[in-house]
């Protein structure tokens, strides 16, 4: 457990403070604790956070509430006609395979889950491995670290454009190499069975370096002396990794997994450069599908419903992560 050091005097002060009567009763002077507070003293902190509150309200809370409301509405045929309240019908349509949105939504949701899980299953262990390799004194350490972190610095759209060239069926580097060896080229982005893998591979390359940075930071916060102690006790490298490094990196792993899941679920900027989710939606992802439907005003009900489903899924993953990892780190 995390237990910050607190001096005795501070502890006493804290206890006094918690014993203070409710700050709303201003008439009653509080002699046991500091000078009397004026009304302004109480309001002042709120004034300070007010700009932030306004922005959070305008750009986070209000849109969130609107999303919930709009997800139950069906826009009128003409822009001037009022929207009709349809309850949960928009959600129901999302799971109706004969509906023009529903017929595409479920397969695309499946793609998103595969994309996210495969990306994480490969990139997080890869990030850990790279961090372990680069947490030692080797020649050109800075160069290696930079090389692996470099993809993260590229804008995703730019990286995707580069990879789209590599993947190109006719003029791409990958197929040029394959064909130089007399092998048939692969239609990386055009073959319905390849496109999701191609997009996932690019994403693993793009994200591993980012996750590696967190693991490097985690590794460097582990004190060296426990490894010295383990060495004296005759622990093998594998045992040190299994019983020291991995448990001590638990919090890092939790953090990496949470950001990896939320991050990957929302990683779709590569799609405009990589065949727009084609062919046959086999390379499409939920957030991009939502975006594809925004421009039709009459789909706003579905668009908002899909957004909330996406938020729901993210919430489940995040909570599951916390429950799993928090409990384990408590035990240790």
């Amino acid at each position: 457990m995390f237990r910050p050091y607190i001096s005795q005097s501070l502890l006493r002060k804290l206890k006094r403070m918690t014993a203070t009567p409710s700050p709303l009763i201003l008439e009653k002077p509080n002699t046991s604790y500091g000078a009397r507070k004026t009304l302004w003293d109480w309001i002042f902190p709120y004034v300070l956070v007010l700009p932030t509150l306004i922005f959070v309200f305008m750009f986070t809370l209000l849109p969130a509430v609107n999303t919930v409301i709009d997800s139950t509405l069906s826009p009128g045929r003409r822009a001037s006609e009022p929207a009709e309240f349809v309850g949960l019908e928009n959600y129901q349509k999302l799971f109706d395979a004969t509906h023009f949105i529903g017929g595409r939504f479920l397969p695309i949701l499946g793609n998103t889950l595969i994309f996210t899980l495969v990306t994480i299953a490969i990139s997080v262990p890869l990030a850990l491995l790279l961090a372990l390799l680069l947490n030692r004194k080797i020649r050109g350490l800075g160069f290696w670290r930079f090389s692996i972190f470099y993809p993260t610095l590229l804008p995703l759209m730019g990286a995707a454009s580069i990879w789209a060239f590599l993947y190109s069926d006719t003029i791409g580097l990958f197929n040029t190499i394959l064909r130089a060896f007399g092998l048939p080229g692969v239609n990386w982005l055009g073959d319905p069975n390849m496109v999701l893998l191609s997009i996932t591979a690019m994403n693993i390359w793009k994200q591993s370096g980012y996750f590696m940075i967190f693991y490097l930071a985690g590794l460097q916060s582990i004190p060296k002396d426990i490894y010295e102690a383990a060495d004296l006790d005759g622990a093998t490298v594998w045992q040190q990794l299994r019983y020291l490094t991995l448990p001590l990196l638990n919090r890092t792993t939790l953090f990496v997994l949470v950001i990896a899941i939320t991050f990957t679920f929302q990683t779709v900027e590569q799609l405009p450069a990589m065949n727009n989710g084609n062919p046959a939606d086999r390379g499409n992802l939920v957030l991009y599908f939502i975006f594809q439907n925004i421009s039709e005003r009459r789909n706003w009900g579905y668009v908002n419903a899909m957004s909330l489903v996406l938020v729901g899924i993210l919430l489940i993953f995040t909570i599951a992560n916390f429950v799993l990892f928090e409990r384990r780190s408590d035990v240790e």
Partner: protein
Amino acid sequence: MIRHKQTLGATLVALLMLVAVSVMAQDKIVVDFYYPTAVDGPIDEIIAKYEADFEAMHPEIDVVPAYTGSYTQTRDTIRTEIAAEDVIVDVAVMLATDLTSFVEDESIVPAQQFIDAMDTADAFTAGFFPAFLANSADEDGMIWSVPFQRSTPILYYNADLFAEAGIAVPTNNEELIAAAQALQTEDRAGLLLPVAGTFPTWLYQSFAAAYGQPIVEASPAEVFFNTPESLAAVEFITKLGMAEADGGFAVGPMGGSAWGDTPTAFTSGQAAMIYHTTGSLTSILNNATFEVGVAFLPSGPAGETGTGYGAPTGGGNLYIFAAAAPEVQEAAWLWVEYLASDTVQSDWGANTGYIAATVGAWDVEPLKTLVTEKPQYLVARDQLEFAVKEFDSYRSIDVQGIINTALSSIISGNVPLSEAQATLDAAQVQIDSLLAEYK
């Protein structure tokens, strides 16, 4: 405190200056003009040239052009402004096929009202190629948008290869396959059909028309997607990439090629023939190291009834927005009229490869001289005689999404050809349920 006062003072001065600038600008009628582009070239310089020329003629008007990315980005930007009820745009170039959506959303005003006010109303309308006006009018014949940067797909071929092999340029689909099979090698596709990208619908329409049933007719409430002609068209497109062992023609990659890669593959000698937009003509002519031939899209199967040449039109029209003040709309119309004039259309067509949309533009410089030097530009114009209305319907974005997904599914081999009819039927059911309320 002193410092605060200084900051306050500076802010006030800045605000005053802003107000002053905007007051000064208000002397002129400001027309915000959004334009996308889908072709290479110094488009912004050309537009700036038109702006200067126009403002010299109309000193009371200040046109403010803004490049807004792709067609989709332009449409989405404008839709966002409209949804936020803070509309900046007064006039814009958008896809000709955006018409029905924007009429439904009540966000544009008909060009007809301005045309009717002209002394030369009939001559103005008659000046355009009829194929390009097909997507400007609604069911009642009212004109809403004015053709500006228009295009159509054409067949590009490597004339050197044809000359070497002694093969004639194909005029129908059978000759197309024969030529493609004769000219393909291990490193070179016989024919690249760019249907792998975002909009297989566009090229599909030319096959649907060539097989006898265009995807749409006059009514925007009816779409034809599961007819025998549709099936024949989609089967033909799919077979281009299928192995001969599976009954295909094997003249290009399965699923077609990507839109943007196709001209590059052609100019670098990796394809004997391609289908592409006329909008790429200028850059293909500039980049190819061989003699580039241009021809009509080959016609449907010879000898059967109801077949022939067929190509959709494409590209962008000029729209004026309802949110603009009446005097701004009037000024915007003058700008539209200017952009649609023979002089500008001729210059625009010569610089970009878009087909000049007025008949008169072809008798004006620089296009007049250009076509004598490069007769390729004439092929696209002459094909217009056989052009069909481009896809547009109610709920056009959704219907196009359904069609694209179904086409992509069949063409890429995600579903086998034996299930193609079922896929088209399922798509037609979805389309019909969307369009039911408009019938």
